[in-house]
C-alpha cells in the first residue's frame, strides 16, 4: 500500500487506529514532492517545518490526545490564502517578499483539526486566469500530460492533488478557479454557496464572487474538509450566520427521487465532442441510478461571461489598489516622486494580465461609464440569478460540463485573452448567482480527464453531495 494513493477519509481512519504515524505520512509526501515537483511545478513554497509539526502531532497522540478530523493530513494551500510565516505571493512579483502576520480563518480551522500545511501552491497571478500560465514564477504542468496546462487559477492545488503531492488542497473560486482546474486534473473541486466559508485571509480578487473550497481525490474528502472549514466567522461580514450540516452524511449510492436539469445552453456547438459524450454518459448513468432527467433552459446564460468580467474586474481594480509599494510587497527602486513611485511599482510589480484587468475594472467604474457597464452588469446578474431560481423550481440539481474542452496545450491560448476567458463559460454564472457547485471526473478523452459539473440551489449542499457521490460511486465501479 502506498500512502500517496490514500484518501483523507482512509488515512484519518488509519491515524485513529494508530496504524500509521503523522511523521510517516508527511515524510512520504515530502519525498514525493522532492521527487516529482521538479516536473509538475505545483509548489511555490514547501513548508520545511512540516516534519517537526508531524512529530508534535505524534507526541500529542502518544500523550493521550484524541485524534482530530485531519490529524497529520498534509494539505496544500493556494498561494492567495494567508498562512502565518509562509509567503503569500499570489504568484506575483508584487508580493514576492510578503509574509502575512496572520492565518486565514480556514487555516486556523485546518490546524485546529490537526491538518499540516505542506506548502503554498502556484496559481495564475492574483487568480486572474484559467491556465496557471500567468504566474510570475513558473507554469504548472498537468499531471496527466505535462505539455498541457492544469487549468487555473488554482492550477497548483489541482495538479498537487492530481499528482498525489498532497492529500487535499484549498483553492479559491471566483469564476471557476477551483472547478475548472479540478476537471483538468481529474479530481473533485467544490465551490461552496457564497458565505458558507469565511474569506478572511483570502487575498481578494472579486469579493462578491470569491469562495474558498476544497480540492480533493473524492467527494468524501471534500465533505471532510468542508466540515472543518465552513461556518460563521465574526471577521467576515459576508460569511453567513449559519450552522453548516455534517456534509459527510449526505453521501449515497443512488439517485432515486432526484430531478436533474440539463440546460440546453450548456451544450453549445463549440463544445468538444469528447466532453459532450462523457458528460452525456454521466447523465445517462444518473438516470440508471434512479434520477429523473429533464432538459431545462437558463436563457441569460450567454451574458454570463460579459457580466462576470465587468463585476470581477471592477472589484479587482479596487481590491488590488492597496499594492502600491508603500506598506509591503514590491517597491520600485527608481522614482523621483510619489506618482512615479506608484506608477513604476505597479508597472513593474504586476504582470500583463493583472494590468489588463485593473484597467478594465477601472474603466467600467469610471464616471460616465458606471451606469452603462457596472450598474447594468449588476442588473443582468440578477437576471442570471433568477434563471437559476426558476430552474430550481422544477429540478433539484443541474448537470453541465465543467469545461468546454479538455486541458489545452501550454502556450495555446496565452496570446488570446478572449479565448482564455471562455474557459470559464460553464462555471462563472454559478459565482454570479452565489450557488454551490462541484466538478468531478466522469471519464477520459484519451488520457485526459473530463469533468462533470453539478450545481445546486443556494445552501443545498446536501443535494449537491448526494448527486455527486452517487455519480462518483457509479464511475468508480465501472471504470
Amino acid at each position, binding site marked *: 500500500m502506498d500512502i500517496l494513493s490514500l484518501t483523507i477519509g482512509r488515512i484519518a481512519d488509519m491515524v485513529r487506529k494508530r496504524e500509521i504515524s503523522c511523521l510517516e505520512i508527511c515524510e512520504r509526501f515530502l519525498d514525493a514532492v522532492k521527487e516529482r515537483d521538479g516536473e509538475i511545478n505545483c509548489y511555490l513554497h514547501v513548508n520545511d517545518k512540516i516534519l517537526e509539526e508531524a512529530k508534535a502531532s505524534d507526541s500529542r497522540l502518544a500523550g493521550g490526545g484524541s485524534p482530530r478530523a485531519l490529524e497529520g493530513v498534509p494539505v496544500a494551500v493556494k498561494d*492567495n*490564502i*494567508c498562512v502565518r510565516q509562509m509567503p*503569500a505571493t*499570489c504568484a506575483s512579483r508584487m*508580493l514576492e517578499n*510578503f509574509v*502575512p*502576520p*496572520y492565518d*486565514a480563518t480556514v487555516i486556523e480551522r485546518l490546524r485546529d483539526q490537526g491538518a499540516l500545511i505542506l506548502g503554498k501552491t502556484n496559481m495564475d497571478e492574483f487568480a486572474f486566469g484559467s491556465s496557471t500560465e500567468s504566474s510570475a514564477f513558473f507554469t504548472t504542468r498537468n499531471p496527466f500530460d505535462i505539455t498541457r496546462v492544469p487549468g487555473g487559477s488554482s492550477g497548483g492545488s489541482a495538479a498537487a492533488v492530481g499528482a498525489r503531492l498532497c492529500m487535499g488542497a484549498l483553492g479559491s473560486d471566483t469564476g471557476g478557479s477551483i472547478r475548472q482546474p479540478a476537471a483538468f486534473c481529474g479530481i473533485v473541486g467544490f465551490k461552496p454557496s457564497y458565505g458558507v466559508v469565511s*474569506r*478572511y*485571509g*483570502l*487575498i*481578494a480578487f*472579486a*469579493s*462578491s464572487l470569491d469562495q474558498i473550497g476544497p480540492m480533493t481525490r473524492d467527494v468524501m474528502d471534500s465533505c471532510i474538509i468542508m466540515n472543518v472549514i465552513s461556518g460563521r466567522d*465574526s*471577521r*467576515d*461580514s*459576508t460569511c453567513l450566520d449559519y450552522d453548516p450540516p455534517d456534509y459527510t452524511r449526505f453521501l449515497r449510492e443512488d439517485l432515486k427521487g432526484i430531478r436533474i436539469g440539463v440546460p440546453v445552453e450548456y451544450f453549445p456547438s463549440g463544445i468538444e465532442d469528447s466532453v459532450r459524450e462523457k458528460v452525456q454518459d454521466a447523465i445517462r448513468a444518473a438516470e440508471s441510478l434512479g434520477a429523473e432527467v429533464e432538459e431545462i433552459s437558463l436563457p441569460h446564460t450567454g451574458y454570463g461571461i460579459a457580466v462576470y468580467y465587468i463585476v470581477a474586474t*471592477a*472589484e479587482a*481594480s*479596487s481590491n488590488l*489598489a*492597496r*499594492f*502600491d509599494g*508603500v*506598506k*509591503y510587497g514590491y517597491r520600485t527602486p527608481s522614482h523621483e516622486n*510619489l506618482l512615479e513611485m*506608484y506608477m513604476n511599482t505597479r508597472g513593474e510589480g504586476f504582470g500583463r494580465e493583472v494590468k489588463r484587468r485593473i484597467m478594465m475594472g*477601472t474603466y467600467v*467604474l*469610471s*464616471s460616465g461609464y*458606471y451606469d452603462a457597464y*457596472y450598474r447594468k452588469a449588476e442588473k443582468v446578474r440578477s437576471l442570471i440569478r433568477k434563471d437559476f431560481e426558476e430552474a430550481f423550481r422544477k429540478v433539484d440539481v443541474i448537470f453541465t460540463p465543467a469545461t468546454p474542452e479538455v486541458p489545452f496545450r501550454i502556450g495555446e491560448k496565452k496570446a488570446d485573452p478572449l479565448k482564455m476567458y471562455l474557459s470559464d463559460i460553464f462555471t462563472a454564472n454559478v459565482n454570479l448567482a452565489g450557488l454551490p457547485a462541484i466538478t468531478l471526473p466522469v471519464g477520459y478523452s484519451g488520457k485526459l480527464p473530463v469533468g462533470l459539473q453539478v450545481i445546486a440551489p443556494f445552501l443545498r449542499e446536501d443535494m449537491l453531495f448526494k448527486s455527486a457521490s452517487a455519480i462518483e460511486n457509479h464511475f468508480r465501479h465501472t471504470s
Partner: protein
Amino acid sequence: MDVFHFEVIQLLIKKQVGMMENYELVIGLEVHVELSTESKLFCGCSTRFGAEPNTQVCPVCSGMPGTLPVLNKKAVESAVKAASALGCGVEEVSIFARKNYFYPDLPKNYQISQYERPIASDGFLMLDGRKIRIKRVHMEEDAGKLIHSAGESGPSYVDLNRSGIPLIEIVTEPDLKSSSEAETFLNNLKRILEYLEISDCNMEEGSLRCDANISVRPRGESRLGVKTEIKNMNSFKAVRKAIDYEAARQVSILSKNGRISQETRLWNESIQVTEGMRSKEEAHDYRYFPDPDLMPVYVTGQMCREITESIGELPLERKERFVREYGLSEYDASSLTSRKKVADYYEKVVSGKINPKAAANWIMGDLMALLKEHKTEIDSSPVLPGYMAELLSFTEDGRITGTTAKDVLSECFATGICPGDIVREKNLLQINDQDLITGTIREVLENNGKAVADYRNGREQAVGFLVGQIMRKTGGKANPAIVRDTLLKALKEM
C-alpha cells in the same frame, strides 16, 4: 505677498463700507466629526488620541491583503443619534461604498464611505431662529496621517493610528450668509454633538474638521456664483477668517470683471490667505461602488426610536428651561448650557435648594477661573457639586462672608476638603455679633484719626478705607452690611 493679496486685504479692512456691501455671500459647510467610540469603525483597534505612531494598528486598518472590515455597531448608533438630533430622516437601509483614490495615508487606497445611500438626510439646525438645512449625514472611515521630514527631499512617514477611526460627515445646504454665521453654526453643532456624547469635537486634535464651499453674488441676484472649496482650517476662528478672506478675494476678482475658477483652495494659517493647490491635481474620479465586503446597514424603525428616545435635552431646549425654571438671564443660561458637563454640574448644585442666580455667578466666575488656571475639566473638579452647594448655603444664610467664601473655594479646590470642615477648622464663621463689631469699630476709629477727619471734610472714600480696616481686624469674617451700617452711624454720632 503679491499685489493681489494686498488688494484683497485692503478690501477686508474696508469691508464694512466698501464694495463688499454690493455682494452677498453664500456658504455651505462640510463638517467631519470623529466619533469617540472605543474602537475603530471596522476593526478592534483603540481610537485613543496621541499614542506613539503605529501602535494602534492591526492587519485590518493597515490594509493587509486578505483582511476584511467588520462594522462597529456603536458607530452606527452614534451616527443615528447625530442624525436624529439634527432632524434628519434616518434610512432603514444605507450602503457603504468604496471611494477609490491613491494616497499613502490611505492603506487600501480606497476609503470606505457612503455615497449613493447615506445613513441619513434632510435635516436642519436652528440658527437664531432660522433653519440651516442639513443635506446629508454619512459615515466613513478616517485616513492615517503623513509626517513629513523637515527638508524638501527627506522621507515622509505614515502613521496609521487614525486610519479607520469612525467619522460622520455632515453636509449643509448653502444656507449660511456670513463668516460669523458659519462660526455660530459650528459652535451650535459642536454643542449638540457634545451633548450627545458622541465626539470630543476638538478641532486642534482634528476630531472636528470643516471644509467650506464659498461663492459670492451681486445682491439681488438669484443665481449662485462659482464656488470654491476651502480646506485646511484648524479652528473656528480660522474658518471665519478664511471665509472673510475668500469672499473678499472673489469680490475683488468679480469687481474687476474677472472670473472665479471652481477649485479647491487651502487656508494658509501663517500668512492668513487662501491659496490654490500648488500641484495641479487632476480632477478626481473616485469610482464609487458598493463595498462588496460589507452588508447593507439596517436601522430598523424600532432601533431608531430607541436611539432617538435615549437622546436627552439638547442645548437649546436646556437653555430655555434654565431661563424658565431658574429665572436666569438668557446670557447666563446660554453660558451654562453651552457645555453639557457645566450644565450638569450646575443642576447638581442648585438641586440643593441654592439660589440659582448665585450658583450661576459662582460657577461661571470663581469656579471657572480656578478650573482654567489648573487646566481641569469641570467633571473632574475637586470642588464637587455637593461642596459647591454647601459653600453657597454658607454664604446665603450669612454664616460666612463673600470674601471668606472665595478663600474657602480655593482651599477646597486645592485640598478637596469639604467647605464645612474648612470653615469649622479655620473658625471662619461670619461675625454678626453687634457688640463685637461695635467694639472693633470704636478701636479702628480711635486709631485712624486722619481718616475720620477726612470723612468730616466730605471725603466719602474714607468710609471704604475704614471698612477695610475693620474687615482686616476681623479676619474678613465680619458681616459687611452690619459693619457699614454701624460705622456710618458711629461716624454721624461723633
